[in-house]
């Protein structure tokens, strides 16, 4: 039996794993550098699109610049829930769609919604808030035959 086929000891196994990790890190660094270079080339080739992308990124910088207070957030939720309860679902959805990410985050936080990510997407926040709207509507509704 050749020595290559023998089982490694625990120490040898750890060393082997560390070598493999280091190799993987070097590979990822090379990929990252290559993606960076491609990104720069695209930006130089399409300067107008690059400016637009930068502005949009600044606009959707989600976690600062909320325009509503926690009290206003709850009042806004009540308004949306009242609209949904009256059957005006589309209008309720439109109100939420018009909200910026920081405002959505304030509303979600005030409703006690927790997210698995620290920076949830706008869609995730909107869905979570609308979930609470639906809860609110269900809580206010009952069927009475009396």
């Amino acid at each position: 039996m050749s020595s290559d086929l023998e089982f490694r000891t625990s120490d040898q196994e750890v060393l082997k794993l560390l070598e493999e990790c280091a190799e993987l890190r070097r590979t990822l660094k090379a990929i990252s550098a290559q993606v960076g270079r491609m990104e720069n080339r695209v930006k130089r080739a399409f300067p107008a699109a690059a400016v637009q992308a930068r502005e949009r990124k600044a606009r959707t910088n989600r976690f600062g610049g909320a325009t509503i207070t926690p009290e206003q957030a709850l009042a806004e939720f009540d308004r949306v829930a009242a609209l949904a309860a009256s059957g005006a679902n589309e209008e309720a959805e439109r109100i939420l769609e018009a909200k910026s990410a920081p405002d959505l985050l304030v509303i979600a936080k005030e409703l006690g919604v927790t997210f698995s990510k620290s920076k949830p997407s706008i869609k995730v926040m909107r869905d979570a808030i609308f979930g609470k709207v639906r809860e609110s509507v269900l809580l206010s509704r009952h069927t009475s035959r009396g």
Partner: protein
Amino acid sequence: MSANKSPKTIATINFKGGVGKTTVTWCLADTLSTYSNAAVLMFDLDAQMSLTQAVGLNEDSGTLYPAFESWYEKCVNGRRTIFDAIDQYTKPGVHFDFPIAYDFIYQISNGLHFIPSVEDLYWLELAEFFDRDQMKDFMRRLLGKIAHSGKVSDYDYVLFDCPPSFTLLSYSVLACCDLVLIPVNPDFFASRGVSLLLNSLKMRIEPHPTPQIAVFMNKTKTYANAPTKEAAFYMRQIEQICNRASKEQGIRATFFDDAWVRERVGIKRAITGGGVPPELVKDFQGLWQACLGVLK
């Protein structure tokens, strides 16, 4: 203790199980009797007997305390249970003269007395055995007998632990009590139950007047000594439900937004373990003050 005065009566009720009816009834009664000079009488009206077992059970040994066990045995064998009182009350052509004494009422402490449940209460679920209209006045008559017996304390407050369903006995309590106290938990299903319960109470008690109703948040999750945002969400929703029910259905439903009781793991053991945990005493004192506020 007061004399010549009708006691204030409070029924803890919710048709949803697990919201903490039994624990709340006991904690309120214990807080009241321990931290004031009030004389309190507590009823267990649930055939599941949770409160009765909690009062009598020694958790260390898993058996009933000898004093309670021998008293309860005499009570059952001597036909002095709440079911026997109902049985006598509903017998046609028989004057209701059920004897009131301490073989019917168990003395937990000087200020806290107790009328336990009995398995026979399950029969009350079978409504055809008893007449609804006749049962309506049972609790009022029984409380009158207790107040005028001269053989037991003059009670300032009577607390009822009601079953999680609408039995004839709960109907009888609702027809005479001063306050219906509804514990609710900070989750969707418990909150949903409040809306249904308020609607149901009015329909089932009519044509008699619906008593004053108070709803409060039990098992409240807290952060920095205040309800969490999630708990606060349900508290706001329930407050809106109460306001809407008061406005649209003409009932008197109040939500205690300041008198919530925090969540505590193992609170049930407090009943058998020597009293309300210190960190919850203030919560129950606050709840009691809120109850007094609406009872005035």
